[in-house]
C-alpha cells in the first residue's frame, strides 16, 4: 500500500473493490468449543460486559458493595490484630454470605432475567435452537454462566479476607482449610441460587416480573426461615428450626458447611445430628437437581 506522503505512479483512487461473496473454508469448532464460548459470553453478560453501559451499573455496583465489608474487616484485622487480641477472622468465612444475603439476592434476581428471560422474550432462543447446539446443552450452559457469575460475587470477598488473614499472620493451615470449606459452600450456594432464579426467570418471561419474583422467592423464604429459627431457638424447640433451615438456600448451605466442615454456626439452629446433617446434604442435591431438571423440562416446551 502506498502512503500519502510518497508520490507514487498511481494516484490514490476512492474505489472500494467489491470482493463479492467469499465462502468460508476455515475450521468449524465442535460442540465443546461452542459451549465454552457461549459460557464465556454469558458470564461476561452477567456483569454487563458486552451489553449496554447502563446494564453494567447494577452488577458492578453490587460487586463493589459486596467487597466493601470484607475490605474493612481485613483492614481492622491487619491494623488492630494485637490491640483487639484477635486470632481468627472477625466474621467467619461461612457467615459472610448470610450477612450479605440481601446483596446476593438482588444480584441473582437482576441478572437471571437478563440471561434467561431475555432469550425467551425477544425469542432469540430460536436462533440458538436453529444452530447445532442441543437444547439441554443450551439450558445447562446458560445456568453455568449464571452460577459462575454468582460464585464470583460470593467468593471474591472470601478470597480477599483469606489473603488479608494470611497477611495478618493468622495460622495459614487452619485458614486455608476454612477458606476452602467456605469456597465449596459458596459454590453450592451459587448453584442453588442460580438454579432457583433461572427457573423463576424462565417461567416469567417479562423482565420486571421476573426480577420481582426472584427477589420475593429468595428474600421471603430467608426471612420466614430466619424468623422460625429464631423463635424455635428461644422457645427451646431447636428441631423445628433445623427443619425450617431446609427451606432457604442460605440457611441450607450454611447448615451443610456446619455439618461437613465444622464451620462456626451462623444460624441459631444448625443441624445438630448426623441424620439432620445428611438430610441437609440431600436437600442441597435435591434442590440443585430439581431446579435443573425443571428448567430442562420447561425448555422442552419452548417452540422455536
Amino acid at each position, binding site marked *: 500500500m502506498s502512503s500519502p506522503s510518497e508520490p507514487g505512479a498511481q494516484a490514490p483512487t476512492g474505489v472500494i473493490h467489491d470482493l463479492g461473496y467469499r465462502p468460508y473454508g476455515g475450521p468449524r469448532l465442535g460442540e465443546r468449543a*461452542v459451549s465454552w464460548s457461549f459460557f464465556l459470553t454469558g458470564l461476561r453478560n452477567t456483569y454487563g460486559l458486552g*451489553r449496554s453501559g447502563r446494564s453494567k451499573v447494577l452488577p458492578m455496583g453490587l460487586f463493589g458493595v459486596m467487597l466493601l465489608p470484607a475490605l474493612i474487616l481485613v483492614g481492622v484485622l491487619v491494623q488492630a490484630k494485637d490491640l483487639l487480641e484477635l486470632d481468627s477472622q472477625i466474621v467467619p468465612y461461612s457467615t459472610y454470605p448470610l450477612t450479605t444475603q440481601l446483596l446476593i439476592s438482588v444480584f441473582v434476581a437482576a441478572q437471571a432475567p437478563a440471561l434467561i428471560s431475555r432469550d425467551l422474550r425477544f425469542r432469540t432462543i430460536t436462533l440458538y435452537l*436453529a444452530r447445532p447446539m442441543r437444547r439441554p446443552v443450551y439450558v445447562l450452559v446458560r445456568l453455568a454462566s449464571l452460577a459462575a457469575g454468582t460464585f464470583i460475587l460470593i467468593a471474591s470477598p472470601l478470597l480477599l479476607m483469606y489473603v488479608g488473614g494470611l497477611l495478618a499472620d493468622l495460622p495459614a493451615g487452619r485458614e486455608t482449610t476454612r477458606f476452602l470449606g467456605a469456597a465449596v459452600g459458596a459454590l453450592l450456594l451459587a448453584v442453588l441460587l442460580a438454579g432457583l432464579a433461572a427457573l423463576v426467570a424462565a417461567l416469567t418471561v417479562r423482565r420486571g416480573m421476573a426480577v420481582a419474583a426472584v427477589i420475593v422467592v429468595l428474600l421471603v423464604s430467608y426471612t420466614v426461615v430466619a424468623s422460625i429459627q429464631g423463635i424455635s431457638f428461644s422457645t427451646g424447640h431447636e428441631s423445628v428450626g433445623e427443619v425450617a433451615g431446609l427451606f432457604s438456600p442460605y440457611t441450607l448451605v450454611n447448615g451443610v458447611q456446619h455439618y461437613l466442615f465444622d464451620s462456626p454456626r451462623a444460624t441459631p439452629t444448625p443441624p445438630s445430628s448426623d441424620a439432620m446433617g445428611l438430610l441437609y446434604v440431600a436437600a442441597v442435591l435435591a434442590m440443585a437437581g430439581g431446579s435443573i431438571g425443571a428448567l430442562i423440562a420447561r425448555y422442552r416446551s419452548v417452540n422455536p
Partner: protein
Amino acid sequence: MAVIETVGLTKQYPAVTALDNLDVEVGDGVTGLVGANGAGKSTLIKILLGLADATSGTARVLGHDVATEGAAIRALVGYMPEHDCLPADVSASDLVVHMGQMSGLPYAAARERAADVLRHVGLAEERYRPMGGYSTGMKQRAKLAQALVHDPKLVLLDEPTNGLDPSSRDDMLALVQKVGHEFGIAVLVTSHLLGELERVSDHVVVLDSGRLLRASATTEFLHATGSLIVEVQGRPDADRVLGQALVDAGLTARPAEGQLIEVVVKDAATPDVVRDLTVDLGLGLVRMQERHQRIEDVFREGGAGSVQPV
C-alpha cells in the same frame, strides 16, 4: 443431489393436519414456497431444521436425515425466522459475531465473516447501534445476516418481506436473489404472495392445507398464468363492452374483481389488440398491467383437487 427431499411427509397436530403426505424436491438456486397462512410452510421449515418431529414420512436436507442428523443439518443451514428474534440491547454486529461463534466459527473468523455479511445485506454504520432502535427493514437485514454468517449451504427464509414497505420489499427480494445466484447458496424462501416470489425464484412450490398444490419452474408458472388486468372507463358498461369485443377478436377475457377485465395473454401482440380495441370503442384506458398473481388464483385455476405429482 436434491438439496431438500421429502417423501410422504406428514405432520399431525392434535387438532389439525399441518402437512399431509407431502412429496417435494428442492434443488439449487432460489425456490419459493408459497401458501396461505396456515398452509404448513413454517411447519415444513421446522421439520427440515430438525426442530419438530414429523408424524410420518421422511425428509432429507443436503443428504442428512432430519429425524436423526438434526445437528449436522443445522450446522449447514441458515435460518431466518418469520417472527422478531433480535435482542433490543445488542448491536447487530455483536449479535452476528456471537451467532457465528455459535455455529462453530472461531472468534476471529466470526468477526471477519460478520463484517462481510453485514456489508452484503446493506447494514452500514447502524450495525453498531442497539437493534431495539432499528426499523423493520433493518431488522430483517440483521436477521438475514445472522442466517448467512456461517456460510451455510442452504438458507431457509421464512417470510423475509413480512412487514416491509414496497421499496424495502424490492430490496429484500433483490437480496434473496443475490444470495441464491451470486453467493451460490441454495435458498428456500416462503411467502403468501406468489407474485413477489415469481420475480426472484427459479422454482415455485405451492402448498395448500399441508398438501402440494403445484411444483414447477417459475417460467412454466408465468406461461400458464400470464394475463393482463385492464381497466377502462367512458361508459357505465365499459368493461362489458370491451370484454365482448375482446372475445369477438378471439382472445380469452373474463370479468375480474370490480370493474376490471382479465385478458389471457396469447402472444406479444395481445396488449396492442387490447389498446386498439379500446380506442376503436371510444373508451378511456385507465390501466393495463400484468396480473400480479396471488395464491388464490392458483386455487381458482387448479382447485385443490388437481394436485400434480412432482
